[in-house]
C-alpha cells in the first residue's frame, strides 16, 4: 500500500513525541511517587517532632495522671492523622481511631519494628499492612521522654492517601501529555505537509516529465536541500527537454528523408524482421498493413528480396545487387542494393534500397530502338540502291523497259537517304543542344508567307487550296527564322501529302497569353486515336509504306517538336480520321509586343 510521505512523516513524528513524552512521563511518575512519599514522610516526621514536644510538655505539666487516649485523640484530630501513644513496655496507651474498649483489647506493640527502632534510636519508620485498619500504612514513631524514653508517639498515615495524591498527579500529567500529543500531532501534520508538499509537487512534475510534458516547473521555496532538488529537477527537465527535442528533430529529419526519398528503403533486424519500411517502398509493393515485425516475404511477396536478405545476413555477400521485376500494380524494374548492418563485426540487420530503374530502362530501350531504327532506315535505301545497281550491272541494263525505272529508283532512294541523313543530323543537333539558334524578333506574317511560297508548287500539283486565316498585323515573335520556316514547311508538306486532291490547307494564327499560336489544318485523311499520341516519336509512321512513297523519313514531326520546344513553345495535334488534322504550336512573343 502506498502511504503518502506526509502521513509517514506525521506518524514518525508522533511516534517520537509519544516516546519522548511517555519516557518523560514514566520518569516523572516514578520520581514523583518517591518524592511524594518522601515529602509526606518528612511532613509527618516534622509533625511527629512537634507532637513529641507537645506530649513531653503535657507530661511535664500533668505528671501523674496523664490521659494518653485523650492526648492521642487530640493530636490526631489536630493534625488530621492517626496518632498512637505506646508505653515503654509496648502497651498501647492511646489511639486516635480507637475507643477505650478497643484500646483495652489491643495487643502489645512492643514487637512492631517502628517501635523497636524508635526506642532504640529515637525514630522508627515502617511500611506495612495494618490489620487494625486493614490498609497499607506508613508508620513513623518517635520516642518521647526527658532523659530516658517514657513512651513512643507514633503517627500513621494510610499509604492509599499517597496513591490518591499520586493518581491526581497522574491525571494532571496524563491530560497535559495528551494535550501536548494532540498539539504536536497537529503541528507535525503541518510540518510534514510543509516538508512533503514540495516533494509531492516535484514527484508530480517528474510524472509529467515522464509523460512528455516539460512545461511544468518545480516551485522553488526556501534555500534548503529541497530547493536544490527542485532546481536540479528543473535543470534536468530543461536538459531532457532539449535532448528529446534534439532527438525528435533528428528523428523527424530521418523520417523526412526516408519518406521523401524516391527510393524504397527496408531495414530488418538480424532475425529478418522488418524494423522500417519507407512510404516509397510501401507504394511500390502496395503494403497497406503495418509491416514492422513481419518478415519481408510476408509483406512484399518477393522471393528474390528475401533471398538477398538471407544472403546478406549469413554474411555470404557484403554488397548484394539484384534487378527484380515487379508486376503489381504496374510493371516496374527495380534495382535492389543491400548491405548488412554491422556493429563490432556482428550482424545486426540488413538495409535494402530499391531504385526504380523502369524509366532508365525505358530510355535505354528508346535509345536502342532509335539506333535499330536508324540502322534500319539507313540500310533500306542503301539496299535498294546497291541491289538495283547490282541488277543493272548483272545485265538488266539491257532490259531497256526496266532500266530507266531502276535508275529512277536509285535516284529516289539516294535522295531519301540524303534527306534522312540531313534530318538525323538536324535532330541530333537540336537534341544535343548544339544547334545554334539565331533568335531574333520576327514578323510572323512574313515567315508564314515565305514558307507558303516554298510549298506553293506542291499544292498546285494536287490542286490543294492554301488559305491564310489571321489578322493582317500580328505581334512580333522571338524565333530563329530558318528553324521556324522549317517547322512551317514540315507541317505544310505533311498536310499536302496527306490531303487528297482538291482539298485545302489552312494556316491560322492568333495571340494567346504571351505566345503566338499557329495552326496548320488540312482536310486530309486524319490520324487515328491509336496513332495520335505517338505521332511525334522518331520514325513513328502511321503508314510506313505510304510515308516512304511520299518521301518521308519519319523524322519530320519529331524535328518540328524539338524546334518548337527549343523556342520555349508547345506543339500538339488534333485529328478526326477522314476529316483532317490540325497541328498547332506556340512561339513566344517578343518582349516588346507582349
Amino acid at each position: 500500500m502506498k502511504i503518502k510521505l506526509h502521513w509517514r512523516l506525521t506518524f514518525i513524528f508522533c511516534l517520537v513525541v509519544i516516546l519522548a513524552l511517555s519516557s518523560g512521563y514514566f520518569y516523572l511518575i516514578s520520581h514523583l511517587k518517591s518524592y511524594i512519599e518522601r515529602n509526606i514522610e518528612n511532613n509527618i516526621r516534622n509533625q511527629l517532632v512537634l507532637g513529641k514536644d507537645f506530649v513531653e510538655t503535657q507530661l511535664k505539666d500533668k505528671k501523674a495522671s496523664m490521659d494518653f487516649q485523650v492526648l492521642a485523640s487530640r493530636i490526631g484530630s489536630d493534625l488530621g492523622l492517626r496518632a498512637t501513644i505506646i508505653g515503654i513496655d509496648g502497651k498501647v496507651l492511646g489511639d486516635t481511631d480507637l475507643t477505650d474498649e478497643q484500646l483495652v483489647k489491643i495487643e502489645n506493640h512492643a514487637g512492631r519494628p517502628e517501635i523497636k527502632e524508635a526506642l532504640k534510636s529515637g525514630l522508627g519508620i515502617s511500611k506495612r499492612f495494618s490489620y487494625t485498619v486493614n490498609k497499607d500504612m506508613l508508620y513513623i514513631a518517635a520516642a518521647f521522654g526527658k532523659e530516658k524514653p517514657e513512651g513512643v508517639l507514633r503517627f500513621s498515615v494510610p499509604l492509599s492517601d499517597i496513591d490518591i495524591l499520586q493518581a491526581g498527579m497522574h491525571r494532571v500529567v496524563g491530560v497535559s501529555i495528551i494535550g501536548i500529543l494532540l498539539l504536536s500531532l497537529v503541528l507535525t501534520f503541518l510540518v510534514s505537509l510543509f516538508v512533503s508538499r514540495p516533494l509531492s509537487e516535484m514527484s508530480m512534475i517528474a510524472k509529467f516529465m515522464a509523460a512528455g510534458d516539460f512545461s511544468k516547473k518545480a516551485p522553488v521555496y526556501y534555500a534548503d536541500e529541497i530547493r536544490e532538488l527542485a532546481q536540479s529537477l528543473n535543470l534536468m527537465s530543461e536538459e531532457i527537454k532539449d535532448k528529446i527535442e534534439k532527438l525528435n528533430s533528428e528523428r523527424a529529419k530521418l523520417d523526412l528523408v526516408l519518406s521523401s526519398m524516391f527510393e524504397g528503403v527496408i531495414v530488418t533486424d538480424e532475425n529478418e524482421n522488418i524494423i522500417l519500411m519507407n512510404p516509397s517502398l510501401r507504394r511500390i509493393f502496395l503494403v497497406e498493413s503495418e509491416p514492422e515485425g513481419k518478415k519481408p516475404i510476408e509483406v512484399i511477396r518477393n522471393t528474390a528480396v528475401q533471398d538477398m536478405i538471407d544472403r546478406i545476413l549469413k554474411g555470404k555477400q557484403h554488397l548484394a545487387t539484384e534487378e527484380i521485376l515487379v508486376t503489381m500494380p504496374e510493371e516496374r524494374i527495380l534495382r535492389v542494393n543491400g548491405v548488412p548492418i554491422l556493429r563490432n563485426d556482428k550482424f545486426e540487420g540488413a538495409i535494402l534500397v530499391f531504385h526504380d530503374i523502369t524509366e532508365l530502362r525505358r530510355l535505354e530501350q528508346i535509345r536502342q530502338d532509335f539506333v535499330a531504327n536508324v540502322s534500319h532506315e539507313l540500310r533500306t535505301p542503301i539496299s535498294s540502291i546497291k541491289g538495283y545497281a547490282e541488277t543493272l550491272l548483272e545485265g538488266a541494263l539491257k532490259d531497256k523497259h526496266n532500266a530507266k525505272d531502276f535508275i529512277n529508283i536509285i535516284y529516289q532512294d539516294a535522295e531519301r537517304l540524303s534527306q534522312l541523313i540531313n534530318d538525323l543530323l538536324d535532330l541530333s543537333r537540336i537534341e544535343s543542344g548544339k544547334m545554334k539558334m539565331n533568335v531574333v524578333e520576327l514578323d510572323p506574317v512574313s515567315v508564314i508567307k515565305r514558307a507558303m511560297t516554298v510549298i506553293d508548287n506542291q499544292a498546285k500539283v494536287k490542286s490543294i487550296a492554301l488559305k491564310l486565316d489571321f489578322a493582317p498585323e500580328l505581334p512580333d515573335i522571338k524565333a530563329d527564322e530558318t528553324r521556324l520556316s522549317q517547322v512551317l514547311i514540315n507541317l505544310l508538306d505533311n498536310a499536302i501529302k496527306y490531303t487528297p486532291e482538291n482539298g485545302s490547307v489552312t494556316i491560322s494564327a492568333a495571340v494567346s497569353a504571351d505566345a503566338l499560336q499557329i495552326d496548320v489544318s488540312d482536310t486530309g485523311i486524319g490520324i487515328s486515336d491509336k496513332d495520335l499520341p505517338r505521332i511525334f516519336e522518331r520514325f513513328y509512321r502511321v503508314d510506313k509504306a505510304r510515308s516512304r512513297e511520299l518521301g518521308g523519313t519519319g523524322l519530320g514531326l519529331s524535328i518540328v517538336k524539338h524546334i518548337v520546344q527549343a523556342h520555349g513553345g508547345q506543339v500538339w495535334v488534333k485529328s478526326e480520321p477522314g476529316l483532317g488534322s490540325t497541328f498547332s504550336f506556340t512561339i513566344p512573343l517578343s518582349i516588346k509586343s507582349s
Partner: protein
Amino acid sequence: MDTNIIKKEKRIMVVEDDRNINKLISYNLSRNGFTAESVYDGFQAQDKLSRETFDIVVLDIMLPGIDGFHICKSIKENPAAFKTFVVMVSARAESQDKIYGNLVGADCYLTKPFSVTKLMDIIRELSVIRDREYQVHTDPLMQKHIREKGN
C-alpha cells in the same frame, strides 16, 4: 546440274514492306526463272501462308503488322508448311537478331544491304535441295531403296 532430276516449279513468296526492294527481289527472281509473289505486310503474309504452301519465303523482319520472326516461327511450326525454306533479309544486323532468326528456324539470314547475286545463289541452291527431296519422294526406285535399307 543433274539432268535426270525432275524439276518442279517453285513457288516463292517475297515478304518485304519496302516496295522498291520487293520489286528488286521479285524482278531478279523472275529473271532467274522463278515465279515470285510479292507481299507487303505481316498480316497479308500470314493470311497467304495459311491458305497456300510455298517452297521458299524471302522474309523481312521489320514488317507492318506481324514481324518476320513470328511469321518464320509459324511457318516452321505448321506441319503442312515446315518444309518451306525461309530466307531472312533484314536491316537488323545485330548478332542477337541472327541468333533469334536461327532459333525460329530461318534457313538463311542475310543483312541489308545484301548482295542480289548472293541472294539468288542461295535461292538456286535451296531449289536444288527441294528438287532432290521431290525426287526421293516421287522416284519409285528411290522409294524401293529406302524401304529396303531404311532411312
